[in-house]
């Protein structure tokens, strides 16, 4: 009988793993990677290749963990690939006039991270090819396709003229990375949750000398001593949204293990953050399986869409001209120089935006011209495009091979004959450029997926303000994409190992370890108390109420009082009945800390900004020029310090005003 149907009062089966609470294991490394996702794996591989002794710590299992764990279909910004019409520097020049750039999805991006991505995306993909991932049409399934290059067999997406987004067969990306880690003898600690950073003298603000962690199956304690530490643990997801009755506990699109542990640890250690005030509305569990409904966007670009009566919805180019053929959807508009990617989830600047469905679709649905529900008319698509959408993209993108391609074909779905329905959204949303399977949640639910959050500030070495601490991927200023993770990972693998190979041996302070052990084991020492889910639901409610769609000083300050009060009261009385519940409880504590960080960052920005999805009722002025900057927050001596950095700090002193020169100086090529 499944455990959740077990009769009450029946004898409970014992936890199947040995319980090792408080038992310590000490591990030494040159480079310690916290987080075994895409960026962590690339960092580990590149540090190991430079001769460093590398340890990677992962809460789940590296073979499939992280947001990239279940696959990848698009490889972005591969501007140095042999078919690319532009070089990274040309693209940087071309997009320099666009205030929203240089970074995805828009505004307040990390310019250096984007430049690194453009420079190394193709190389990172070649690394994957050597590791066994198929990056070309080696099986000749798409010969003659418009998106396929005859000579290289590379297949392109979005912009068939400039050829910089590559369609890849990345369902097995993580197993390939995992195999390489083992080949390079990287020591992998699966099922270990990192809970705190170690610092040189036990104080925050000092050199980071490693981390501490807890085994999620046995509860054993780990002390990781390292000369350099790379934080690669993404952000706090499922902070505002939580429901036990909605699929995936009403989490966001990405890895549910992303609880902000890296953010919380770095915050306690005195690292500086920015953009934590940024967020976006999320559907949480009110969505459909990712990529699993008929769509015109992203993985489904550029599928013909029809309404309930079979009437086709027209496509237009970025200037609003009606397109006559399918082929035109993947081509530059007259006078256009570059299409960066799909407009979803937010329309890009028109200069770099691709084709889309008619912009007034919402109104025309309301007027009755187009009848819901819509359908993705795969049968009408040219054969190669059809097979590319359903077979290549849906089939290799994360969470599609088994959950969508496998499940739907098993149930009889045939893209040659069948039109997959789009999930029903309100007319106002159905006409917008969002991935439709992502649904609509309550307005007070927010989240940070798809690059809508913040994170650690890094320099051109991908180093934080703390000596010995580096950051990669989604951990950095909310930067988000598979290729950003891969490229920043491989870059930091080089810079962190270069530092480590010359750094002093770290010294560990017992006091810091004792304090952390007392903190992490408290929940298993409670005889009774509340469960972690009640704590999580309470935290989410505080975020929804006091840090929601519209913020004010009085709301945020009340919210901070609530979070502090929860820390003293309910959070101090959570009872964890086994190491798994302990992990989930500690995740709640990370979320609580990140919630505080977000509220402090929100208080600091005294202006509203649509680009940050940030609205203050008490400071309604939109993007006044003096606020076009990064607001930074960090903890010093127990107090929150605010500061600011120019919006393009990576081109200002101590750096030089040239991406190319900064890259040449720091990238260790």
């Amino acid at each position, binding site marked *: 009988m499944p455990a959740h*149907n077990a009769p*009450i009062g029946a004898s409970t089966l014992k936890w199947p793993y040995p319980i090792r609470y408080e038992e310590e294991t000490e591990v030494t490394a040159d480079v310690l990677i916290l987080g075994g996702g895409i960026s962590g794996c690339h960092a580990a591989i590149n540090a190991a290749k430079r001769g460093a002794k590398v340890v990677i710590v992962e809460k*789940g299992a590296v073979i499939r963990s992280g947001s990239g*764990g279940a696959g990848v279909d698009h490889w972005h910004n591969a501007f140095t690939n042999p078919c690319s019409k532009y070089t990274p520097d040309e693209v940087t020049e071309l997009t320099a006039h666009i205030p929203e750039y240089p970074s995805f999805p828009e505004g307040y991006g990390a310019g250096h991270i984007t430049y690194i991505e453009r420079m190394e995306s193709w190389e990172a993909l070649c690394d994957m090819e050597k590791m066994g991932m198929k990056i070309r049409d080696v099986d000749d*399934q798409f010969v003659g396709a418009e998106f396929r290059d005859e000579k290289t067999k590379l297949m392109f997406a979005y912009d068939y003229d400039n050829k910089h987004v590559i369609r890849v067969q990345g369902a097995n990306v993580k197993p390939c990375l995992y195999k390489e880690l083992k080949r390079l003898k990287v020591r992998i600690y699966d099922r270990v949750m990192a809970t705190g950073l170690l610092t040189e003298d036990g104080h925050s603000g000092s050199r980071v000398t490693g981390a501490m962690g807890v085994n999620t199956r046995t509860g054993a304690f780990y002390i990781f001593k390292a000369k350099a530490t790379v934080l690669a643990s993404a952000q706090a997801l499922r902070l505002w949204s939580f429901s*036990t009755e909605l*699929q995936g506990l009403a989490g966001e699109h990405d890895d549910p293990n992303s609880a902000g542990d890296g953010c919380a640890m770095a915050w306690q250690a005195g690292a500086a953050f920015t953009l934590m005030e940024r967020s976006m509305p999320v559907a949480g569990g009110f969505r459909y399986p990712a990529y699993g409904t008929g769509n015109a966007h992203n993985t489904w670009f550029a599928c013909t869409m029809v309404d309930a009566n079979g009437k086709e919805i027209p496509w237009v180019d970025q200037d609003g001209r009606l397109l006559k053929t399918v082929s035109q959807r993947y081509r530059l508009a007259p006078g256009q120089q570059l299409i960066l990617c799909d407009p979803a989830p937010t329309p890009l600047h028109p200069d770099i935006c691709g084709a889309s469905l008619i912009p007034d679709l919402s109104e025309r649905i309301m007027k009755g011209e187009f009848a819901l529900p819509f359908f993705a008319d795969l049968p009408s698509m040219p054969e190669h495009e059809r097979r590319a959408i359903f077979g290549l993209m849906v089939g290799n993108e994360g*969470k599609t091979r088994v959950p969508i391609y496998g499940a739907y074909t098993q*149930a009889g779905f045939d893209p040659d004959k069948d039109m997959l329905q789009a999930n029903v959204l309100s007319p106002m949303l159905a006409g917008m450029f969002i991935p439709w399977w992502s649904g609509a949640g309550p307005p007070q639910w927010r989240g940070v997926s798809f690059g809508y959050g913040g994170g650690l500030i890094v320099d051109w070495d991908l180093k934080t303000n703390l000596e010995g601490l580096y950051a990669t991927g989604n951990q950095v200023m909310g930067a988000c994409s598979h290729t950003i993770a891969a490229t920043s990972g491989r870059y930091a693998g080089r810079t962190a190992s270069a530092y480590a190979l010359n750094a002093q041996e770290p010294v560990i302070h017992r006091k810091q370890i004792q304090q952390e052990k007392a903190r992490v084991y408290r929940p298993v020492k409670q005889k009774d108390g509340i469960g972690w889910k009640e704590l999580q639901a309470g935290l989410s409610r505080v975020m929804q109420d006091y840090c929601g769609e519209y913020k004010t000083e009085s709301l945020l300050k009340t919210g901070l009082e609530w979070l502090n009060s929860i820390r003293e009261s309910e959070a101090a009385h959570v009872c964890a009945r086994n190491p798994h519940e302990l992990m989930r409880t500690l995740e709640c504590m990370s979320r609580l800390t990140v919630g505080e960080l977000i509220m402090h960052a929100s208080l600091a920005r005294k202006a509203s900004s649509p680009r940050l999805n940030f609205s203050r009722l008490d400071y309604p002025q939109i993007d006044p020029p003096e606020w076009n900057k990064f607001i930074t927050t960090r903890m010093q001596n127990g107090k929150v310090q605010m500061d600011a950095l120019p919006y393009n700090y990576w081109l200002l002193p101590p750096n030089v005003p040239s991406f190319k020169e900064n890259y040449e100086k720091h990238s260790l090529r």
Partner: protein
Amino acid sequence: MEYNAYLIANPATPCQSVVIDPELCTHCRTCVNVCLTDVMVPHPDKDKPPIVLYPDECWFCGSCVEHCPEPGAIRMEHPLNQRIGWKRKATGEYFRVGMHNPPPPNTRPPVG
């Protein structure tokens, strides 16, 4: 006919997420060790399939199904509130995931 009734708490989630077939499972525990959210635990009796202990934490990534060496031994199913339909273009017939008398499976594999 004799009936038995038990005290059973509400399930953690409106679905089972992952179901293991005890006839086909060889107890290799690959699914247990691949799952990123640690949804399954080994049964204390080593001749029994793993227990799906935390179905509510399932991310529906399908990695357990992907790595299981025994075809059909483990199934991952989206719950009813996550099921969508499709229309056969030529005939207008409507089908959906989970329907009674579904059409025959499409056996064409994905690319890769």
